[in-house]
Each structure stands twice: as C-alpha cells, then as structure tokens.
C-alpha cells in the first residue's frame, strides 16, 4: 500500500535540479526545447489537446512531441477533471517519470473543479502532483494550451512572466458562520419539495392505436405477473410488477413479444416513502416495437439506514445489455441484483465511495460567501492510497490457465481513459474486462442539485466531441414534458448543428482509430477537417466544443446569413478534403487488411449485447431514432439510413463514413431551406410568459424565463440519435421542485462498451485496438 502525498519540497524540486551544476544553462536549454508530454489523457480537454498537436496548431513546433510512455517523457499535461480513480493513475505516472519533470494543468476542472466543483468524485491535481502552470478554460482552447507550454518553457528558462501578473490567493475552504461577505444569489433559488410525490407511471390519454392493442396483448401474455399496465405517453408503456415476478415477466416479454434489448436500468430512491423503484426500460428491434419503450418497474423496500430490504433478480442473463447498468446501479444505490456475478464491489466508482446517489448523501451547496474577493472552495480530500483492486481471483485463475494478464490503461497510448484488463493466451485474447469510471464526473447526482437550465452545460460536457446532440437530447426531454413545439426556424438550425456535431464526432473517432492503427497521417488529415466543423461551431454559437446552444423551446441565438453561407461552403470543402483522406487511410491496403473480418458481431450478437447506433446498423439492424421516432426536421429532409451486414471493424467504420456523407446532405438541404425562411421567432412563445419579446433574442432574459422551470410530475423519457448511437434521457420530476428529482442518462458509449468486450474475445491482441477504435468509444461519454 503506497500513500499519495505531496511533500512540501516537491514543488520547486525540478526547477532546482536544472539550476544546479556548471552545465545548468545547457540543461535548461535542452529541457526547454524538449518537453515531451506523456500521453496521459485524463478527461475531455484531451480533445483540445489533440487539436493543439494536430495540424491546425501543431504543438511540435515548440519541440513538444507527444510520447506515449511515462519513462521517456518529462511533461504531463493534465487534461481537466481528475477523478478519484484517475488521481491514483496520475500519481503513479508522475512517479514513473524521470526527473526533472513538469506538470501543466489545463481546464477549469483541474483548478477547482470547474463545472463539477461539488462532485463527489473529483480531486484537485495540485493535491496529487506539484503543478507548474494552470491554463483556465472549459475546455481550454489549443492556443491556451500551447501558451501554457510556452509558460513552462519560460519558467524553466527562469524568465519572469511579463505579460500577465498573477495574483496569489489562498483559497479558503468552509467559511465559519458569520465570516465573509454574503453575496446575492445570481440565479433563481432552488426549490426542493420536502416530500416529493414520485410516480413513474402516470396515465395519459394519448391517441395511440397500436398502444391500446399492445396493452391488450401484454395483459393476456403476462397474466398474473403484473400489477398494472399503463400507457404513459405515445410509445411509452409502464408495467408494474413485484420483484419475484420480474424474471418470469421478462422471460415472457422476450419469448412472447420479441423484446430483445434493455435500453436502461434505473433506480429511483424515495426515502420518505421508504422505497426504491427499480426500472428496466426494454424494447425490441421488431419493426412495430422499434419506437416503443416498455418500462418494467418494481418497488423494493428501503430500511431506515438506506439499505434495500431485498434483492432484485438480475435480468442480465436474459438480456446481456442490462449487465453493466445493473453493476452501475449497484454502485450508486447499493441495490443487489441477484444473479449478477459482479455484485459486492464497485464497477465505475473508486473503491472508497459507496452509494453516492442515495438522497442522504449530500453534496456541497452553492454558497455565495466571499473571503476577501475569493469564493470559498469545498474541501476535497485526495485518495489516500494508490491501490486499484483487480477482480478477485483473476491472477490466480490466469496463472492456472497459463494466460498472461496485462493492464492496458488508464495511462496507455491506446487505452483512452479507462483500464482494460486483457487476458491473453499467446496472441489470442481470452477475455477482456473493462474497468471504467476514470472520468466518472457524477453528472446524475450533480443534476439533482441544479436547476433544469443549469444542467444543459453539464450534460454537454459528457461528450465535447459531440456536444450538440448531448444537450439536444436533454432539452428534448424537457420539451416533451412541457409539451412545447419548437419554431420551424429553430428546428432547422438545431438539425444543422446536430448534424455538424455528428460529423465532428465521426472525424474525432476516425482520427483516434487511425492513431490506434499507428497511422498518424490519417489522424492529422481528419483533424484538419474537424477544425472546419469547429470553426462553423464558433461562428454559429461562440464556442468550439461547449456551445450550450439549444435551450428549451428553441435555440440561444439566431444564425446569420453569412454563417449559413460558410457552413454551406464547408460542406463542399469537406468533400474535397475527404477524398485525400480516403486515399491515405480508407483505401490504404494495410488499413483494409487490419479492419476487414476483425471483431465480427453478427446481428444476433449485436442485439444481445445491446450495442447501438451506427455500430448496430453495421451488423444489419435498421434502427435509427431519426427515422423511427423522427424529431426536429429530419422527417422533411431527404436522406437514407446506412446499414451493412458485415458487422466487422471495416463495416462499422465505413457505415459511419457513409452516414456522415448523408449528414452532409442533410446539412446542405437544411441550409438551403433555412436561407429561404424569414428571420423571426427562434424560441417558442408558449414558454416565454410575459417575456414575449425574448422570442427572437433571449439575451438578458434567460434566468427570468428558465430559472423556475418546473416539469410536470412523472417520468419523461426520450431517445435521441447522437453521433455514436442512441442517447437516452429519463427525467423524473415531482411537479413541485425546480430541480429534477432524478436524471438518468444512458449514453451510446456506455451501451457500446459491452459490444467491444464481446467483439474482442477470441481475436488477436493487436486486433483489440482495431475493434476499440472502430467502436468510437469515448470514455467521458460512457462514464458521465
């Protein structure tokens, strides 16, 4: 057991190493121009790090060459949030690096938590390792990052910072009562209902003929197993059952109705009613079932100390896609799923955390108390030891079977932000065990403590390579609950932005994919194209990766004609550059040899392990939320679903490639239509109340309009087609509070995780990276 401690003398030790000896000037000059960052991507700022070292900004100009291995690097760029799990890895990597070594922390999260300041799972990098320079921003821009590199160079050289004078402040934590200056609360105060009335199956009378038929069928099929079946909305059915009937009910749904996958496993704690509600949202890829989500829920008693009174039977044996979500719910609430083998240890949480999503686990509240001019910061204790346990018995078992166990990640050039435990026999992978949670930033808990409107920027941080779709899903859920229609103009702009975001995410994934296969040129080319998407994003919304552009009822601001022209030009420019990318990467014989017939998932397997989006379509399932349950203006535009039947890495990749060509078509059509639409309303007037004038420009009225948004009572679930697949938001509201009671987010990467694991088994070791890359797995999105 090794303890994490930052010693007092650590801070300037590395500089003083360089300052000693007669050769000091040489040492300093050499290190200054040879800062090799070790490839340690800790959070979503990594996207901007990649931009900083891709051809747009080219960090190599400064002599900084990204090196994957800690032993050979002398510089860590800590990218944003350091979670409790990642803190251990950060310390280990730092310890592994040879002296003299330097640390630059980028992103607001790395300083004081940024948007996640009161999360239960973050730490401050400065508590873990001595930091040489902070770069603020959420996320930082590549220019900012490179400026940070420059600053470290200056520091090594011994130059004073001449451009900016930094003020030294001591961050106070936990002010004494009565101390400090109380400031005004800048936004609406939060209202928490004392005894919220939680009901997830509120009956609604909707015109849905198939629904009535389906309910009849369910009633006869599930005779005696259910308590009540309710239609809660169009395409939404809730079935209440007892825990002991759950397995049989699920079995009958599977065999009788053809329900074949689980979209979501959710737990809602209602402490004052002494119960947990456990939900399974299931659906089928049969043609008529596609848009339907059946919510099977059951209630479990809650003891006064918060422990559940009984176990819930696991349905992971019927639908493997439920497995990881069940483990997650076990982490969050301590509910035990009988039959799921993982129970008893944490899956995505750090080992020292237990049941943080229970209501009696309180987070720090926002307090506007100033000490001098500095707001107080919540005190965060870093983890005390470096150990991260392996599954028990793994090593012994592997040794008995003459297998080699290798830990890939979280610090590994080809791991992303999670740890993969590979079990290999020779060159064949026997099993791969994912260890996610290194970027778990506790969005579901944080969302319960923030206003509905404040959650928009929070959720888009889940995936800053596909930000628009991330918050579009959330906003659509709110709009669905409130029953708001979005003005046509706003709807078109939303579609354009969502598709641009999808294209950007594809380029992100292709870049990573080509890097995983050792092809840096492919990475550079697509990253250059991605710069165009980001430029369009900046022009339209003002931000490269975190626009928070879509708000309930419409969009934050209108797009001018010039920007539309620009986007239009970009769509054709992208086509031209893509041809070069095709030549160098897609039609490269080595790439084809690496990707073809590797990691094959047949249609049945793909459905069983619950993968979604373009990866599911590549296995032959024609399911795209944009067609199945059309939203925005997708219905009015002319585009096709791309499906394949190979189900291998090449198929998954080419499927997405064809898909973004369709996306470019959508953008083109939407831009053309938008040009002919008159400027006008971009936010629905239904929502604005007395601020009707804000419908064309919300500036100055945002909190007046949205501060006290309250959703009607009940559970609201929407699915959205994000870049990597189906994105599900489920908001539970009590109808009184202006914060959500519970928000459940199921991101496509989280669902695809199972697919990666299944596709990898039995393949060769090097294929793991081909499969991993082809799935476009984005860990911050999966960990939320």
């Amino acid at each position, binding site marked *: 057991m090794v303890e994490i401690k930052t010693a007092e003398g650590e801070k300037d030790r590395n500089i003083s190493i360089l300052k000693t000896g007669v050769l000091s000037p040489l040492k300093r000059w050499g290190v200054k121009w040879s800062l090799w960052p070790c490839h340690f991507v800790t959070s979503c700022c990594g996207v901007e790090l990649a931009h900083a070292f891709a051809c747009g900004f080219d960090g190599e100009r400064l*002599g900084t060459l990204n090196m994957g291995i800690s032993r050979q690097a002398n510089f860590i760029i800590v990218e944003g949030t350091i979670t409790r799990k990642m803190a251990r890895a950060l310390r280990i990597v730092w310890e592994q690096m040879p002296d003299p070594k330097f640390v630059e922390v980028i992103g607001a999260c790395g300083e004081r938590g940024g948007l996640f300041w009161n999360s239960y799972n973050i730490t401050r990098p400065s508590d873990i390792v001595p930091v040489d320079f902070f770069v603020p921003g959420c996320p930082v821009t590549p220019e900012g990052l490179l400026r940070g590199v420059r600053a470290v160079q200056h520091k090594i050289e011994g130059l004073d910072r001449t451009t900016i004078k930094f003020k030294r402040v001591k961050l106070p934590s936990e002010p004494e009562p009565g101390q400090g200056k109380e400031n005004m609360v800048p936004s609406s105060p939060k209202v928490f209902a004392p005894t919220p009335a939680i009901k997830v199956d509120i009956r609604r009378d909707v015109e849905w003929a198939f629904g009535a038929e389906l309910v009849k069928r369910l009633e006869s099929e599930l005779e005696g197993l259910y308590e009540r079946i309710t239609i809660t909305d169009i395409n939404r059915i809730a079935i209440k059952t007892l825990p002991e009937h759950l397995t049989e009910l699920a079995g009958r749904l599977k065999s009788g109705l053809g329900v074949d996958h689980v979209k979501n496993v959710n737990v809602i704690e209602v402490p004052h009613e002494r119960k947990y509600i456990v939900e399974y949202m299931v659906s089928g890829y049969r043609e008529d079932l596609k848009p339907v989500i059946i919510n099977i829920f059951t209630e479990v008693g809650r003891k006064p100390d918060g422990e559940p009174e009984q176990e819930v039977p696991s349905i992971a044996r019927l639908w493997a896609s439920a497995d990881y979500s069940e483990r997650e719910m076990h982490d969050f609430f301590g509910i035990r799923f009988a039959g799921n083998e993982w129970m008893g240890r944490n899956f995505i949480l750090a080992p020292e955390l237990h049941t943080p999503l229970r209501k009696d686990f309180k987070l720090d509240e926002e307090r506007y108390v100033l000490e001098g001019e500095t707001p107080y910061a919540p005190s965060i204790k870093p983890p005390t030891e470096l150990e991260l346990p392996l599954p028990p018995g793994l090593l012994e078992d592997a040794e008995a079977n003459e297998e080699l166990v290798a830990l890939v990640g979280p610090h*590994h050039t080809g791991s992303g932000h999670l740890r993969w435990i590979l079990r290999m026999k020779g060159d064949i992978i026997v099993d791969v065990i994912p260890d996610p949670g290194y970027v778990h930033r506790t969005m579901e808990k944080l969302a319960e403590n923030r206003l509905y409107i404040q959650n928009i920027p929070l959720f888009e941080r889940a995936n800053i390579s596909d930000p628009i779709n991330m918050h579009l899903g959330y906003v659509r859920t709110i709009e669905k609950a409130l029953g708001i229609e979005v003005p046509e103009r706003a709807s078109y702009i939303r579609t354009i932005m969502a598709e641009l975001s999808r294209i950007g995410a594809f380029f992100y994934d292709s870049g990573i994919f080509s890097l995983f296969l050792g092809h840096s040129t492919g990475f550079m080319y697509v990253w250059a194209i991605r710069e165009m998407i980001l430029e369009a994003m900046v022009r339209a919304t003002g931000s490269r990766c975190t626009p928070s552009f879509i708000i309930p009822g419409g969009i934050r601001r209108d797009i001018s004609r010039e920007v539309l022209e620009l986007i239009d030009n970009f769509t054709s420019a992208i086509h031209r550059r893509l041809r070069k990318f095709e030549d160098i990467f897609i039609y*490269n014989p080595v790439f084809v040899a690496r990707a073809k017939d590797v990691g094959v998932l047949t249609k049945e397997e793909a459905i069983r392990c619950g993968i979604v989006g373009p990866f599911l379509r590549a296995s032959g399932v024609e399911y795209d939320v944009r067609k199945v349950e059309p939203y925005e203006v997708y219905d009015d535009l002319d585009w096709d679903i791309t499906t394949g039947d190979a189900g291998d890495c090449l198929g998954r990749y080419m499927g997405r490639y064809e898909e973004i060509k369709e996306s470019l078509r959508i953008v083109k059509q939407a831009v053309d239509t938008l040009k002919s639409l008159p400027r006008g309303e971009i936010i629905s007037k239904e929502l604005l109340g007395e601020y009707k004038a804000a419908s064309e420009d919300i500036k100055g009225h945002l909190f007046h309009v949205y501060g006290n948004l309250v959703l009607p009572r009940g559970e609201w679930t929407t699915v959205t087609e994000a870049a990597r697949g189906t994105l599900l938001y489920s908001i539970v509201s009590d109808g009184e509070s202006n914060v959500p009671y519970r928000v459940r987010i199921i991101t496509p990467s989280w669902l695809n995780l199972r697919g990666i694991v299944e596709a990898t088994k039995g393949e060769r070791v090097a294929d793991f990276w081909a499969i991993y890359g082809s799935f476009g797995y984005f860990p911050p999105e999966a960990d939320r």
Partner: protein
Amino acid sequence: MEEVINALMAAIMSNQVNIPLLQPLFRLMVQIPGAGFMVSFILWKPFFAALISPGFATLGILLLFFPWVERKLCGRIQWRVGPHEIVWWLGGIIQLLADSLRFLFQEVIVHKDAQRPYFLQFPFLTFIPTLLPLLFIPAGSIVAIQTPYAIQIILALVCLFPLFIIGLGWASNSRFAFIGTVREAFMYFAYEVAFIVAVLAMVILYGTSDLVEIGAHQAGWVWGICINPVAAVVFFIGAAMATARLPFEIADAEQELAAGPHVEYSGIGFGLIYVICYEKAYILSGLMTVLFLGGGSGPQIGVLGELSGLIWFLLKTFIVMVTLFVLRVLYPRYRLDQALNIGWSSLLSLSLFALALSIAITAVAGAGAVAGAVGGGIV
C-alpha cells in the same frame, strides 16, 4: 625502429584518399612537422572510412540532423510544419541537439524488477552489431576493411540486431516489454530468410561478395536494381522489417505495447535506443545503395577525386533512408500474423524468384559478367 615507422608511413601513404582539389593544401601541410603525419593519417583510407566517412563522424552528423529531416518531412506530408521554434530562422534544425541534451541530463530509472546489470548493459551492447558493419560498407572506393567476405560479415551482424532487442526486453522484465520481445523474435523469422536470399541473389549475379568490387561492377548506369528489381523490392521490405518501420513496426507498437521492449528505458538509455534505430536504417540503406543503387557510382566530379564517389554514396543512402522513414506516414501497422504471413509467403517466394532470376541471368551471360560487361560498355 625507424624502418618500422617508415614502413608504416609507406603503408599509410600508399593508401590515401585522393582529393585533387585539396592536394595543394595538403602539400603545404606536409611541410609542417607533425601536421603532415596527421593529415596523411587522417587521409589514410581505413581511418578515413571508419572514423570520418562513411563511418562515425558522418553517422554522428546524420543522427543529429536526420530525425529533424524526418520530422519536418512527415510534418509537411501531414499538413503541418514540425519542429520550428527552436531556431526559427533555420526551421528548428537543432531540435535533436536539444532532445539529446535533455536525454543526457535526465534521470536514468532502473526499476525494481529489472535485471539490473543487463538492463544497463544492453543499450551499449546493441552498438556492436549496429556499428561494426560500418567498417565493411564502402563509399565508392573508400572502405575501412576490404574483404571478399564483406557481405557475409555484414549479414551476420545485421542478423544480430534482434538478439539485443530481445535482451533489452528480457532485462526490462515488464509485461509489455515481454510481449514486444516475443513479437520481435517472430518478426526476425519473418524477414530473415527472404532478406538473406535476396542478398544471395545479388552475390550470385555479381559473382563476388566483396562490396568494393560490387560497387565497381555497377560503375555505369546499370545498377543492381535494373538487373534484378525483384531482389531490390525484397531487400527493401526486409530492411523495413529489420528496422521496424511502419507498416512493420510491430514489436514496439506504441499504441499497442507502449514501445514494447523499450518501455522501461528512460534518460540516456532511451536516447541510445532511439539512436540505434537510425543507425540500423543507415547501415541497411548503405548496403542497399551498394548492392542495388550502384554504390558510389555517378557522374565523377574530377576535382573531388574519391570524395565524389563518397558524396554519391551518401546521397543515395540518404534517399533510401528517407524513403524508409517516410513509410511511417503512409501506412498503418500490420498485425503480427499478417506480417509473418507476408514474410513467409509473398516475401519468401519473391526472394526465391529473385534468386532464380539471378541464376538464369548468370547462366546466360556468365558469372559476374553481366553487370561488369554492360556497365563497362557504357562507361
């Protein structure tokens, strides 16, 4: 005593690098006591070849600037600029100086699990097979050791490369190093046979394995690559595999194995390993130049005398090296089994075809006659 010195002097004087341009200067220097001996010693062919060019000094300069060339060129292909800021008015040309200084002054970590003595020795031992071949590679007529067994000796040393890499990986005692080491061993078998057969094909064609003679055979424009292009292709692919260039950078795949056998090396230890990969490429490119690209042949620049051949040799070697290194930006990485498959099927059959081609040509035209006759005819 004096006789011995005189005999030595005579031996040295009889084997001088002939540079007409600098002759007046040398004549002047010979009159200065001591300096004359120094000059003639430096110009003594074996010394000149081993320590100045194409030997250590050239290699040193190359190591200092070649990675920069590579990074700049790759940068250009990848739509960016590469190292630039360090001396911006020279395009960052001394980037490698900074890198090597940094490596030199960095802590060398020997982790607890390493086999300490071997871990520290192997980076240095690796220099044996990578530097010794330099003694046998002729640049035009400048060579340190001329022997009829030059090719055999170089091949023997080249085949030792993987041994030391395996040693590095084994001494590191880490999982990724272990996997990388095993991959290196496999890769060795993938290229070795085909590579040797390709060289053999050329030896049969030229009828000798003395590299100086082989270079002389190609004095005209009929180079080995024109007579037996198949062998050249096999040799080039084999060289890419031996120097672990993409698409065959399989043993130290950074994205998969975090640099495989080199994963635990830090500071100057890694600096040496980093350098060795360029040395290997230099030697194999030099061998390729002599075997296939006419060695030092090219338009003679009269005033430079034997240096002319040297310059042509270095230029060609440089081009081959650049080609080897630019593969990095053009190709992703093959899987181990695919590379083995290529090595044992396509590459081996190609090499056998090259061998048959050589035998056929020789049978028709007579041993050693081909290149010499045709080349001589043109000259």
